[in-house]
């Protein structure tokens, strides 16, 4: 461990502890209604980037995992204790990701994008069909005594977990393997890396996180129905936030999630018809003007500053 990493390991939890006091501020209800989406998107975008960053596979499956999580919550809410549901959702998310991954990740990126593009919609169709024929009702009520503040804390905890997992993967053999795969898959295969397995494992991590977020967010909806739980827009939002922030750094997606979530909330409440246009323009801007994301821009400044400072001293 380098000194930088130790400092990070201390500073990041401290930052999270400070953030955890947000609900105790006066007038916190308004703040929370902004902080919860930001925290949610940060978790989703960071876990998305853990997989998509090094591998360059654009996953649009987030909404599918999220919806599965929300339905796990709705189905077993009255039967099982809450922590068990979280665990089950994580397992289901990971297994689902494994199945999708094994079918598509052996092939080139285009196949994967296309497959995940429709995954949420397909899962929704299957759910609706199943519920129409075997399950009785379409929607589910989720009545819990989980408060907004508790959801926020859970998301914060998940955020911390995502950072720890991402940091740990970055140091592990798996992280090293995945960086080689991202740089050149052929080289990776020739140096004895089991490429498909590494990619699937990483995809499972991001799938499990998205499913757990689905469980955590479910009580906010109160009433869950397929069109809402499996909204494909979520996948795109997560992808654009992560890309906007920069996917080559663990802290990059955070830089994208905060501004984009704020702008999104503003547009969605003031000009609801124009949200799609905003998303489209955001995609174009990111590709043409900030291909390395905000993180890349910040790093560029940092290096310039450092270079300028170095000249003064030397």
């Amino acid at each position, binding site marked *: 461990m380098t000194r930088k990493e130790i400092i990070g390991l201390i500073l990041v939890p401290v930052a999270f502890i400070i953030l955890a006091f947000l609900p105790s501020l006066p007038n916190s209800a308004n703040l929370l209604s902004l902080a919860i989406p930001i925290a949610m998107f940060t978790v989703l975008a960071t876990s998305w980037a853990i997989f998509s960053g090094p591998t360059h596979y654009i996953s649009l499956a987030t909404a599918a995992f999220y919806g599965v999580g929300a339905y796990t919550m709705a189905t077993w809410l009255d039967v099982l204790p809450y922590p068990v549901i979280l665990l089950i959702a994580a397992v289901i998310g990971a297994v689902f990701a494994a199945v999708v991954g094994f079918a598509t990740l052996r*092939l080139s990126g285009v196949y994967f994008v296309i497959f995940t593009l*429709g995954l949420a919609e397909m899962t929704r169709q299957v759910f609706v069909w199943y519920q129409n024929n075997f399950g009785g009702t379409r929607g589910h009520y989720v009545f819990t005594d989980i408060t907004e503040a508790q959801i926020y804390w859970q998301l914060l905890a998940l955020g911390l977990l995502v950072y720890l997992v991402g940091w740990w993967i970055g140091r592990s053999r798996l992280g090293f393997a995945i960086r080689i795969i991202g740089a050149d898959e052929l080289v990776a295969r020739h140096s004895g890396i089991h490429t498909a397995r590494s990619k699937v494992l990483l995809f499972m991590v991001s799938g499990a996180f998205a499913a757990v977020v689905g469980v955590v967010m479910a009580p906010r909806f109160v009433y869950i129905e397929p069109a809402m739980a499996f909204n494909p827009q979520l996948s795109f939002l997560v992808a654009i936030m992560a890309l906007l922030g920069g996917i080559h750094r663990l802290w990059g997606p955070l830089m994208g999630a905060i501004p984009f979530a704020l702008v999104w909330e503003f547009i969605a409440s003031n000009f609801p018809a124009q949200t799609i246009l905003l998303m489209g*323009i955001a*995609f*174009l801007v990111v*590709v043409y003007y900030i291909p390395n994301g905000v993180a890349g821009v910040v790093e560029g400044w940092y290096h310039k500053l450092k270079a300028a400072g170095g000249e003064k001293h030397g």
Partner: protein
Amino acid sequence: MQILITGIFLGGVYAIIAVGLSLQYGVARIMNLAVGEMLVAGAFAAFWVYTAQSLNPYWSLLFVVPGAFIVNWLIYRFLLQPLVRRAKTRGQLEVDSILVTFGLSFTLVGIFLIVFGGQFFNYSFMSRPVELFGSRYGQNRVLAFCIAVVICGLLWYWLNYTRSGLSLRAVSVDPKAASLVAIDVNKVSAFAFALGGAIAATGGVLLSTFLTFDASVGVVFTMKALIIVIMGGVGDIRGAIVAALVLGLTETIVARLIDPGLTLASAYFLFLLILLFRPQGLFGRRTT
């Protein structure tokens, strides 16, 4: 029998969209995820011609085809070619072009929403039934199918039996080698992309005569076209046509016999089978 024919009619129209995408992906190497929006644009044009001008919607082809051709040529020239030049690897180009065409797709949907609003559109054109093999089918579907067949046939003939078609196929096989035999790869790619877009918009005109559509329906067709292109093998027109018919049939069978809500799921099931067993496409050869 009725299911079979309905399925084939549907497949014929899918084929034309997929052929458009296949040209764009096979020759210009751009996976155009905004192809569905070209289709919706065509559908809106036909709708406008029919309702506002009270003309036969097929008249809209007069300006839809050249219009879509020019728009797609501009898109390729100014949005995508810089990416082709910038990309260091094929993978980088893939990611960039996917993101850009997604952005394009959303931007277009946003514009459609502002111009036309979010409601559903349909109009009744030639909706009298016609009798075939003892069952009734809408005349509009039959006509759309016939036009699709003609267009696919012309395209197939052009690609396989003319010199300019040959240069297109050459670029699709290997752009570097094609430039060695004095083919202007950039020009051919731009042309293929523009032509693909024009064909997709034509598909939209055909679809609008018998299907209800709205501003955001494009992505559904993009997805189906993508599945067909991969099923048929990238850049393979013949494969795309066969795959489109297979998809049309499967969807119709599932919709009639199991549940109409499961059409996409059935398309996905086909897609999964292809990915697992023949990722190189129905007629493709395995690459080493």
